[in-house]
Each structure stands twice: as structure tokens, then as C-alpha cells.
């Protein structure tokens, strides 16, 4: 689905990523783990086009997308959520999801200002679909609330609903459980599995090991900008190099 080959990223003199190569398999949930500063978020930023890579290629669905801007990648079905949820705070919850449906609709400047009949139909369709998505993540009652006033947990759900609105082929989630309590985390795990069951491939960066071990089919371990190991959760748990990276040398 997504294949990264030889990705490197430098900020001035700092090497954040150094020759990362791996594949995210279709239909599975891939977890990317590693200690702080391992380069996980940077990797997401490179994969989604927020930073250009210093070297290497990002291939998505057999197509080299290394040069594509974030919006182009989103249109291909490569969608992400953010570590510190990035909602449109001044808009309502429903409107946030409707922005997510931007790529699923096409009315331009003229159609919108003249309220062409097809634009009105599209608008109704967007609104209904957005409500369905809020239903899917379980917050339909918050539709008309301003997004900036949501609690962190609800905000996370909204962000997932908004991302799902793009009908992603691959959903990248940056620390989805960060800031959630244990109950919310468990619900999140179920939600991510339901998303996978819809046929969406999921890759997530996460620190919460219980969640990762519970839901992931495949793990990739990063450390200090390089790839340390990959394999099933069981293999990773027993990998001595991973244990050293996490716990430090004796």
C-alpha cells in the first residue's frame, strides 16, 4: 500500500531520519513505535508531504508521490490525523467533517455563489454524510458545537471522523491515544478495528504499548532516525535490540 524507501530527512545539521525503508501492508494495522525522538512524527510528516524528504522515495499504491503536496496525497486516499489534534476550532463539529468531505465534492466558486441546483444537492449530500460519520465515531449529538470547545477525547473522535470523510485508503494516525484516559483508549482501539474492518489500511504511531500490542498486526520500531526492527508484535517483544533501545544498556 505505502512503501518508503531510503527516506532521509535533515534539519540543518540534525539528521531526523536516516535511510528508513519499509512497507505498510494492505488491510492491516501497522504500528510504528520507538522512544521519543526516534523520528516517528517526522516520518509521518514526510509521508503526508508536509516536509519534503531530503532523500528517498514515498510510493503509494504503486505511484511515486514524493513530489506531491499534502492536498494531492489526500486526494489519492492518504490521510492523517495529528498528535495535537488540528481541528478547525472556530467551526462547528459538523462543519469540520464537511471540510473533510471537500474532496468528495466539486462545486467551485461560481456554483457556490450562485447556488446552482446541483450545488444545493451536493450540499445536502455532504451534510447527511457528515452526520453519518459523526454517528460512526459516536458523537452525533455534538454536531452543532464549536469544535474549539471540545474536550481532548471528543476532539480526537472528531478528527477521526473528519479523516474518514476523505474515504482514505490509508489512514495514518499520530499518537491517537495521547491524552486519552484508559476507557477512551479502549474505545479508540475498537474504533480503529472497525475502521480496518471497513477495508481501510491503518498505520499509527503510538506510545501506549497495551493498545499497540492489542490492535496491531505488524510493528515497525524506529530509534534515533533509523529502523531498528520490524515484525509481528510477538517477534518485537522478544527482540533484544528493541529491548535495549527502550530500556537502555545495562
Amino acid at each position, binding site marked *: 500500500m505505502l512503501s518508503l524507501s531510503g527516506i532521509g530527512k535533515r534539519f540543518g545539521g540534525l539528521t531526523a531520519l536516516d535511510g528508513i525503508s519499509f512497507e505498510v501492508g494492505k488491510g492491516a494495522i501497522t504500528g510504528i513505535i520507538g522512544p521519543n525522538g526516534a523520528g516517528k512524527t517526522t516520518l509521518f510528516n514526510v509521508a503526508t508531504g508536509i*516536509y519534503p524528504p531530503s532523500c528517498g522515495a514515498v510510493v503509494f499504491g504503486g505511484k511515486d508521490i514524493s513530489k506531491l503536496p499534502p492536498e494531492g496525497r489526500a486526494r489519492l486516499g492518504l490521510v492523517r490525523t495529528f498528535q495535537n489534534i488540528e481541528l478547525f476550532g472556530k467551526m462547528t463539529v459538523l462543519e469540520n467533517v464537511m471540510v473533510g468531505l471537500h474532496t468528495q465534492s466539486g462545486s467551485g466558486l461560481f456554483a457556490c455563489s450562485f447556488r446552482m441546483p446541483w450545488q444545493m444537492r451536493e450540499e445536502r449530500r455532504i451534510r447527511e454524510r457528515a452526520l453519518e460519520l459523526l454517528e460512526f465515531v459516536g458523537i452525533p449529538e455534538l454536531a452543532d458545537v464549536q469544535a474549539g470547545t471540545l474536550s481532548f477525547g471528543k476532539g480526537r473522535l472528531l478528527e477521526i471522523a473528519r479523516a474518514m470523510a476523505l474515504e482514505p485508503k490509508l489512514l495514518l494516525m499520530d499518537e491517537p491515544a495521547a491524552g486519552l484516559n484508559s476507557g477512551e483508549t479502549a474505545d479508540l482501539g475498537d474504533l480503529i478495528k472497525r475502521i480496518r474492518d471497513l477495508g481501510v489500511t491503518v498505520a499509527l504511531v503510538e506510545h501506549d504499548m497495551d493498545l499497540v500490542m492489542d490492535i496491531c498486526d505488524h510493528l515497525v520500531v524506529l530509534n534515533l532516525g533509523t529502523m531498528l526492527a520490524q515484525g509481528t508484535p510477538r517477534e518485537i517483544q522478544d527482540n533484544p535490540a528493541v529491548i535495549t533501545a527502550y530500556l537502555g544498556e545495562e
Partner: protein
Amino acid sequence: MELLNQVTQFVISGLATGSIYALIGLSFAIIFNSTGIINFAQGEFVMLGGVLTIFSLNVLQLPLAAAIVVAVAVTTVIGILFERLAIRPLKNATPLALIIITIGMSILIRGVVMLLWGKDTQALPAFSGTDPITVAGATLLPQHLWIFGVTVMVIVGCRLFFNHTISGKAMRACSFNRRAANLVGISVGRMVLFSFVISAAVGSLAGVIIAPLTMTAYDVGVMLGLKGFCAAIMGGMGSGLGTVLGGLILGTLESLGAGLISSGYKDAIAFFILLLILFIRPQGLFKKGETERV
């Protein structure tokens, strides 16, 4: 030969106005570097320098040197008030709000000056007469020498201040990383105030030394400010040599363009350069581009 002489002359007067642009550019950069603000009222500090000197000289009957000191001091106080009244009340202001506020302050200052001293254009007498000096075939005015001298002094002064004093180093620290500067015990708020003080002083000084050459009025600040900004952009918004070079290049191009092509479009030259640089090399003429971390 005739043309060569003419060109030399244009270059000399271009370098003189260019020095002024350089000083104004520096005053922009000083505030920008410690606050991230582009102060749209910067030109008004320049205007105040000239107008207040003339006022002190003609109305208060002060000697020239004292008049200049008074003008720069008063402008500096206005700089302090500016920071206190318009910048400080807004915590975590967006760039948009800061742009609007500094524009508001700019027209407010301009309006008050117009109210107090009218709309007339006034001239300041040259500091040491107007007898031209001939050096190697080119003619200089004594005021040109004053401009070059003061500019060099200010640049050297800024350099010493920013590199060799605690306050200067603290201000540079703020420009690199405000949070970190705060953590090591630098009062960021005070540094911001300092930057307005220095910037107002440098700006008004520029306004004082140019006034004998170009005359001054309540509305000269807009153009001078914009050209100073252009110089700063050419220099990549640094408070160093880049901005000085930017100012000198701009002044020379403008003077040559006005003299050889068309004087009506003189002011447009600066803006064409400004737009070109913003479009093509927004990091300045002399810096290498860098990836910005989001």
C-alpha cells in the same frame, strides 16, 4: 565624460539615501528579530526624527545638536509608549492583529503630527553648510559626509551592542528562541521594550540626518519606511551587513533609475525590487535557503 560624471554624481547621492534606507532597514530588523513583528509604523519614527528636530530648532530655539538630541529622545519615548500601549496589551496576538495595530498606530502618529504642525513641508538646515566639496572630480555635499559618518557609527555601535554587551546578547538570544531565552532568565518583555527603544532611536536618527537633503513633512514616513523595509528584505531581515548592503544597492539603483530613466517612476523602482525579492528570494539576497520546521 559628461555621462560618467553624471553617473558618479547619481551614485554618490544614491549611496547617501541608501545609507538612510540601511538605517531604517536596521531599525525594522531590530524589532523583527526580538519580536517577530514587522512594525508598519517604523517610518513614522523616521518622520518624527526630522519633524521634531525642526520643531526644537525653530520653536524651542535650541542649538542644532541639542535639538537633535531632544528629537531622538522624544521619539524614543514615543517608541516606549508605542510598545506599552499597542503591543503589550495583546498577548499571543496573531500576525494579522499586529499588522492592523501597527498600521493603526502609524496613521495615528501621522494624524497627530499633522494636527500639531500642519501639512507644510519643512526643511532642516544642513549641519555644516552647503558648500560642495570636490573629491576626484565628483562633488559631495557636507551633509553627505554627515550621513555616511552617522551611518557607519550606528552600524558599528549596533554591532558592538549586539555582540559584546549582556543586553545585546540577551536580545539576540530572544530572536533565536524566545522560550529558551525566558527559561535561562532573560526577561523577554524587557527585551521587546529594549528593541523598540533602540529601533525608535535608530529610525529617528535616520530621519534627522536625511531631513536637510530631502525636506520633511508629516507624511514622509510611509515611503521612507517602505524603502527601509525593502532594504531589510534584501538583507534577509538580519540586523547585519546584509541590510546595509541592501539599503546601499536600493539607494543607488533608485538614484540611477531616476536620473537616467525617469524620475516619475523613482518610487516604483523600490517596490519592483521589493516584489521581485519577495517572490524569488524571500530569504534575502545573501542568505542560503533553509527548511523551516513546522
